[in-house]
């Protein structure tokens, strides 16, 4: 009980891991590309949580700076990913990821 | 308990910073009731001012000069049937107005009505304000999508595209104002709303006049962007009634529609507060650098009382002008009573102990009210932009201007620090 009430870095890391797992499950099991992209956002957020938690642990700010870089990457990823999605939808009229099988002839 | 309540009174911090939960709650209540009243007054004022601009009288029936009209309106809206389209996504349709209202009201957590009159002072204050106010886009998009109808969908797409793109220009203008806060001996700026006003106080100059005309241009960019941000005329494309009937809230009615209405006006007050805080010296009285000294301080502390007495005098003047007919008796008496009330408030404001505490709030509110009047004025004067013209204005005019002003401000600030304060 004592360890439950005293929030340490480990608590944040476990939360991050849980979020990461949710994201992974989403990426691996869902068919809808939009939701797959959202799951990737979940994964990136889990990473950010860890970075900020570590930054808190060591008292430095490097983790926070990296979190900002990750958010930047997430923006770029979302823009390109959704762009691909729109192009894909235009050609195939579907948003299901297992129908993206052009390479599998 | 009483000690805990009283302990804050002697502190010179915001209740949030002092950690006094009781006063935080009191402030929240005060600000939210104040906002609700301000929105009601604003609807009345908008209808009256617009009417007088358009050679008509506006509301005259409910209360003297329509003063009770907002109450009648809100009662009507609350009693109206709440209609939900059969094909709408019920959950999102239900939650969208609440998101918008939440975003509009939450920003007031950091708005400083005076050096201690804010719920709390965050050191990312302005970032918080911009971020939370940008959340209202989500509510608008959801409202438009959930209605499952063409006009709301187009309205939502339009207004979200508009709000997202004007946020960029708005952010650049804000950054150039924040840069000016760092012009002190340590060279450290601040994002805190209170800190920004205090920086203007320390520099003895409102940022609108700083590095003339750079501050003015940044303020202009913000002033245009904030009208677009709140979807008001001439940028009210999302609600362009001649094209899209009512935009994203076409399918809403009754209470939920009134939430959108409430949030629109609250958002107007919020962005005006940002503009006032960043460029117009927040709670500071006018002419801090020209007319300084104790005598001027004393003279300006009378102004709130004088303003209220003036309003009271207006009421009495109109009481006399009321038609002398038995049908108008109640209205005439009502107007006179309202005048007496305003006059009493004015007289109380002359008491030094009161005026010292209240004049900050008065100046802040007066500046915000000036912006509110501008909003109405725009609506009475301008036609509406077309969507592509609006986007061009945002991306091809305001954005380059904002970048230029930012770079120039930075260079001038750097020069000043290198040359005059080596």
């Amino acid at each position, binding site marked *: 009980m004592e360890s439950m*009430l*005293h*929030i*340490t870095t*480990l608590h944040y*890391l*476990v*939360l991050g*891991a*849980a*979020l990461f797992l*949710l994201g*992974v*499950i*989403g990426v*691996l*099991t*869902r*068919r*809808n590309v*939009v939701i797959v992209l*959202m799951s990737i*956002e979940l994964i990136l*957020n889990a990473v950010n*949580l860890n970075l*900020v*938690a570590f*930054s*808190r642990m*060591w008292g430095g*700010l490097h983790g926070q*700076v990296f*979190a*900002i*870089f990750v*958010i930047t990457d997430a*923006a770029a990823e*979302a*823009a*390109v990913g*959704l*762009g*691909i999605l*729109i*192009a894909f*939808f235009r050609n195939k009229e579907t948003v*299901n990821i297992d129908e993206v099988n052009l390479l599998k002839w | 308990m009483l000690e805990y309540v009283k302990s804050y009174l002697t502190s010179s911090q915001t209740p949030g910073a002092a950690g006094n939960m009781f006063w935080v709650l009191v402030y929240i209540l005060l600000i939210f009731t104040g906002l609700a009243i301000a929105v009601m007054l604003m609807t009345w004022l908008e209808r009256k001012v617009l009417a007088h601009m358009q050679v008509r009288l506006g509301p005259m029936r409910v209360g003297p000069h329509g003063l009770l009209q907002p109450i009648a309106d809100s009662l009507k809206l609350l009693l109206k049937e709440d209609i939900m389209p059969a094909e709408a996504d019920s959950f*999102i349709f239900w939650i969208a107005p609440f998101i918008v209202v939440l975003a509009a009201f939450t920003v007031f957590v950091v708005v400083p009505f005076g050096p201690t009159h804010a719920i709390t002072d965050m050191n*990312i204050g302005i*970032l*918080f304000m911009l*971020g939370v106010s*940008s959340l209202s886009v*989500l509510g608008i998009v*959801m409202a438009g999508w959930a209605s499952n109808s063409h006009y709301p969908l187009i309205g*939502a*797409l339009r207004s979200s595209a508009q709000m*997202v793109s004007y*946020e960029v220009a708005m952010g650049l203008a804000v950054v150039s104002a924040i840069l000016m806060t760092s012009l002190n001996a340590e060279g450290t*700026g601040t994002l805190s709303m209170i800190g920004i006003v205090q920086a203007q106080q320390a520099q003895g100059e409102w940022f609108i006049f700083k590095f003339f005309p750079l501050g003015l241009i940044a303020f202009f960019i913000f002033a245009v962007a904030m009208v677009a941000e709140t979807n008001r005329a001439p940028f009210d494309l999302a609600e362009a009634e001649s094209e899209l009937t009512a935009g994203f809230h076409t399918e809403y009615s009754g209470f939920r529609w009134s939430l959108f209405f409430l949030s629109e006006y609250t958002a107007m007050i919020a962005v005006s507060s940002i503009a006032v805080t960043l460029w117009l010296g927040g709670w500071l009285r006018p002419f801090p650098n020209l007319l300084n000294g104790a005598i001027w301080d004393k003279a300006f502390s009378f102004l709130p009382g004088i303003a209220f007495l003036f309003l009271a005098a207006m009421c009495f003047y109109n009481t006399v002008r009321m038609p002398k007919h038995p049908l108008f008796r109640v209205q005439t008496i009502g107007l006179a009573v309202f005048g007496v009330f305003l006059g009493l408030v004015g007289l109380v404001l002359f008491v030094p102990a009161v005026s010292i505490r209240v004049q900050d709030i008065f100046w802040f509110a007066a500046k915000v009210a000036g912006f509110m009047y501008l909003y109405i004025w725009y609506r009475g004067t301008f036609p509406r932009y077309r969507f592509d013209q609006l986007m061009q204005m945002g991306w091809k005019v305001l954005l380059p201007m904002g970048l230029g002003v930012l770079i120039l401000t930075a260079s001038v600030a750097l020069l000043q620090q290198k040359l005059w304060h080596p």
Partner: protein
Amino acid sequence: MAPVATPFFFYLLSGIMLIGGILVITRKNPVHSALALIVTLLAQASIYLMLYAPFVAGVQIILYAGGIMVLFLFVIMLVSIDRVQKERQFNSQWVVGIIAATALGGLFMAVYTKGKDIFPEHALPMVENDNTQRIATMLYGQYMFAFEIASLLLLVAIIGAVVMAKKKI
């Protein structure tokens, strides 16, 4: 601050985040998923505040909740979803996916139970007041190169997104 506040808010916020995360990956309607994701992101911003990272929290709200999620909602509206909702939601390898994820979760658990002692018991004190300034100094000093790369990346992403989404170039 009272010591009970931190655990209370931590558990409240992590509960919101996890429920939000589960909703994201289980909802049929992408708009509902997006709404859940927004709630998750906002809760995470609050957790950043608890971790004395106010600037990251602000960036999280502005960029993620205000920017990226609007983009998502936009695209969801553009691609018609009525049909998609009626189809099968999970792909054919969902069993494999769940097993892989469980394995990963086991790995995490193993690492954290084994190594929980290496984490310091008490975090170092942090000053919140100049957080923004210190991050700015680092971004424009030590991480200048990374910052430039990130802006280049954004530029590439903009061009890429435009090329992808445009009808005719």
